[in-house]
């Protein structure tokens, strides 16, 4: 039996839900409310010490880390194939899957936290101590507000990310080969927030956003794609 823990306003959750829909899978759903910090409730932290959605439970396996959940779904349910037909396409999908975690998502979370004036409610502060140490530190930083230098670093990282995505879309409709793939699914929910946050994207990216948004799997969750002040992965500490 499969069970997905997810939240509205979580771009990572959206990637998993799009993949599930593309594969015609309907797991049991557990919706968490990030505004109320339900992802830090003790019962959920017991499942994932990072206190983050999405989490996929498959029989007795607990599967975390968004792109690796997508790969797990590809390995357990290969039809229809979404990671590409050739080693080259799969390399590109994995490259983008990794880039989302190291560059796009962490810096988008910081820019978003500042733009939406994120706050940790007082009753949620004590629960931060239940998180894995590094995760707790990141939330404490967010609570204090990110400084000007960090916001500048994040803005620059996001503009480079937008340029890289535009470069790969210059001669292609999709990010990793000639078909819609896990690369598009991993990147899209994050890029879809750029407009609302006043972040610019080039025309080829605009066209690609429209192409992805037209897919029924994406339309089904369109109402949950809004930006929400919450933390992403930790930004790189060294290089």
């Amino acid at each position, binding site marked *: 039996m499969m069970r997905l823990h997810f939240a509205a306003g979580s771009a990572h959750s959206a990637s998993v839900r799009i993949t599930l829909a593309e594969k015609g899978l309907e797991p049991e759903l557990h919706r968490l409310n990030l505004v109320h910090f339900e992802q830090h409730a003790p019962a959920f932290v017991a499942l994932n010490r990072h206190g983050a959605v999405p989490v996929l439970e498959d029989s007795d396996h607990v*599967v975390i880390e968004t792109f*690796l959940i997508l*790969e797990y779904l590809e390995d357990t349910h290969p039809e229809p194939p979404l990671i590409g037909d050739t080693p*080259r396409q799969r*390399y590109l999908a994995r*490259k983008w899957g990794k880039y989302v975690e190291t560059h796009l998502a962490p810096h988008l979370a910081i820019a978003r936290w500042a733009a939406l004036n994120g706050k940790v409610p007082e009753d949620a502060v004590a629960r931060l101590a239940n998180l894995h140490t*590094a995760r707790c530190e990141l939330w404490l930083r967010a609570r204090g507000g990110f400084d000007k230098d960090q916001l500048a670093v994040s803005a620059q990282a996001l503009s*480079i990310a937008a340029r890289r995505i535009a470069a790969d879309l210059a001669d292609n409709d999709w990010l990793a080969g000639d078909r819609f793939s896990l690369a598009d699914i991993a990147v899209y929910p994050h890029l879809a927030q750029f407009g609302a946050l006043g972040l610019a994207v080039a025309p080829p990216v605009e066209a690609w956003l429209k192409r992805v948004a037209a897919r029924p799997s994406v339309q089904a969750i369109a109402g949950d794609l809004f930006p929400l002040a919450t933390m992403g992965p930790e930004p*790189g500490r060294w*290089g």
Partner: protein
Amino acid sequence: MLDVYSWEPNANSGKPLFCLHEKGIPFTYHYIDLVAHEHHGDKFLAINPDGTVPAIVHDGFTMTESTPAMEYIDEAFPGPPLRPAAPFRRWQMRILLRYLDNVVTPSLAMVAANRAAGPPLTGRDADEIRANLDRIPLPERRAMWDKLMFDGTSPRDIEESQRRVMEAIRRFDRVLARNPWLAGETFSLADIGVFATFHALPLEDDYEVGDVWTPHLMRWLRACHSRPALQAAFGMSRGPIARRAADVRRQLGVAGVEQA
């Protein structure tokens, strides 16, 4: 045509070298001397504009992300499979590699770079250092080197990195208490990745690594250092890493090719 542009068989540079030796695939090795800043020179930037090693070029297709490149090598070439067949095992392999790449290797690199930064740079001209830094294409890399050369990394950051390395050592030891290899019953890319970064760990006195503290990790290190393919990859070193590998083998009581 398979070309690997890389530094020593160590950390990310070592991943494709170890991986290709395990698969038994011939390739052309282009040594990129990081100490001489060759990775920021025009010749290498023409291959990888980001100026990071390794870069792997297969029939005109360039790969610069070492972990996805290892999966590519496993898929595109014959030889023993380096990924477990079962999906959950494969997920375990990938999550350990993700943890290694995003948390462990940068922490170890921060500690090692700060230890090494002092002596070779004293006496060097600040303008010359600045000119070298300006050649680094990626802003996050430039910021890292700038921190290292001019401001110094804060003691708090270094302590946090040491804590993370120690946490990783304990985590890997726990995983290896349950399984012979990091992703289960078979040797996999997770073992190659972690070995590439941790192969000389017993020589580091900063961390509690040894038969007393981490017996499972030590058993695994001996098993890895005994593998002929991994020893052959160390043979590609121009010196420093091969010497360290020989020192570790001696300390672990593992026979090396030169003694065999």
